[in-house]
């Protein structure tokens, strides 16, 4: 089971680097949103500094969503998923591996890139560490939920729009506690520690729900 997990990790990371699509697209999109924001809102340094954490979170969320609906597509289309389903390895483990790959190729690099792009938005340097911690944690939940959304729509031609509609309500809590634990907005009390813990709790819930629900959805498409 561990060897199956590692095999998927190795294969999909190789593919991600060789095809060039995944990581590059996500970071490019992230950069686009961050560059367009000041151009749309005006160059006011104070305003940018105030909205920077929220803006970076929105950019992260959109970039993760961009790659979400393709998470299972290739394996479904080329028959690999069917072969994976016919093995000792439970589909739940496969789902967990696929979500891990998605995190390694989207959430993690974006969380690392976020502080750099934060300089473009005049991000307070004191927020760099909290932002990265929150993003690394929160993006785990984003990838797990992306795997679920993609599994629910895997057999559909027009899955993209549906993925967004299905995932959006699931991303609301991650967004809220992600921004709060970055402590970007001037709130009366400092909740960043508590918010980070709640964010971690949301990750744990997603860790339990996502593999089972993804596997169940995939099974119903294979039938």
């Amino acid at each position: 089971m561990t060897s199956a997990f590692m095999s998927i990790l190795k294969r999909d990371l190789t593919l991600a680097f060789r095809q060039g699509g995944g990581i590059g697209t996500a970071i490019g999109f992230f950069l686009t949103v961050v560059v367009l924001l000041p151009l749309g809102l005006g160059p006011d340094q104070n305003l940018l500094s105030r909205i920077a954490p929220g803006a970076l979170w929105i950019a992260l969320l959109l970039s993760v969503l961009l790659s979400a609906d393709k998470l299972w597509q290739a394996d479904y289309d080329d028959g690999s998923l069917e072969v994976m389903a016919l093995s000792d390895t439970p589909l739940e483990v496969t789902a967990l591996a696929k979500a891990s790959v998605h995190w390694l190729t989207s959430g993690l690099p974006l969380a690392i890139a976020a502080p750099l792009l934060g300089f473009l938005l005049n991000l307070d340097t004191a927020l760099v560490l909290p932002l990265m911690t929150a993003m690394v944690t929160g993006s785990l939940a984003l990838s797990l939920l992306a795997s679920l959304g993609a599994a629910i729509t895997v057999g559909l031609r027009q899955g993209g729009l549906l993925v967004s509609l299905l995932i959006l309500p699931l991303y609301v809590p991650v967004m809220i506690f992600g921004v709060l634990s970055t402590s970007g907005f001037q709130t009366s009390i400092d909740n960043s520690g508590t918010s980070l813990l709640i964010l971690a709790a949301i990750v744990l819930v997603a860790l339990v729900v996502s593999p089972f629900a993804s596997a169940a959805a995939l099974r119903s498409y294979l039938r």
Partner: protein
Amino acid sequence: MEISGKGLACERGGRLVFTGLGFSATGGRMLVLRGPNGAGKTSLLRLIAGVAEPAAGALSFTGAGEDGEIAPHVHFVAHQDAIKLHLTVEENLAFWAGFLGGGDIGTALDALNLRALRSFQAQRLSAGQKRRLGLARLALAPRPVWLLDEPTVGLDTHSQGLLASLMTAHLEAGNILIASTHIDLPVPSTDVLDFAGVTS
């Protein structure tokens, strides 16, 4: 070892593909599925593999597993080859070896004459070579039940011979082999399930 089905019915895309179908496949004898397009050969293979559920009837599998679960004992080679175009031949096999729990890549390469191609990315292979790579999974990890859906499509005569000897070795070990094919492969002891006969 035996797989048998009784009174099977299959529904696909809001249509009854077949009803009242019965069959039996025993170890050491190949069961060939014959019939026109749309008769339900692929559907039956999917039912046996357990990736689809019969609308009626029952399947039974005795022999290999005490758990009665058929999925981990099956090699199902469908129309899609389950290969990644951006991986090399060797990397593709290495992935399946790792995922399916071991298996000698060298044996698999030799069994379908892929050794010369092993460092090519799969996107550079011809359709027939891709098919061989898909079939190489059979030689990778030993499994007692092979379900092959049109395995000879795209294969030249020499490759058909390689496949036939692979199948023969599988049958001689007393294993189960069910295949849908239009070509008579030189495999000993064959039973035929004719779909034209059972459905109309």
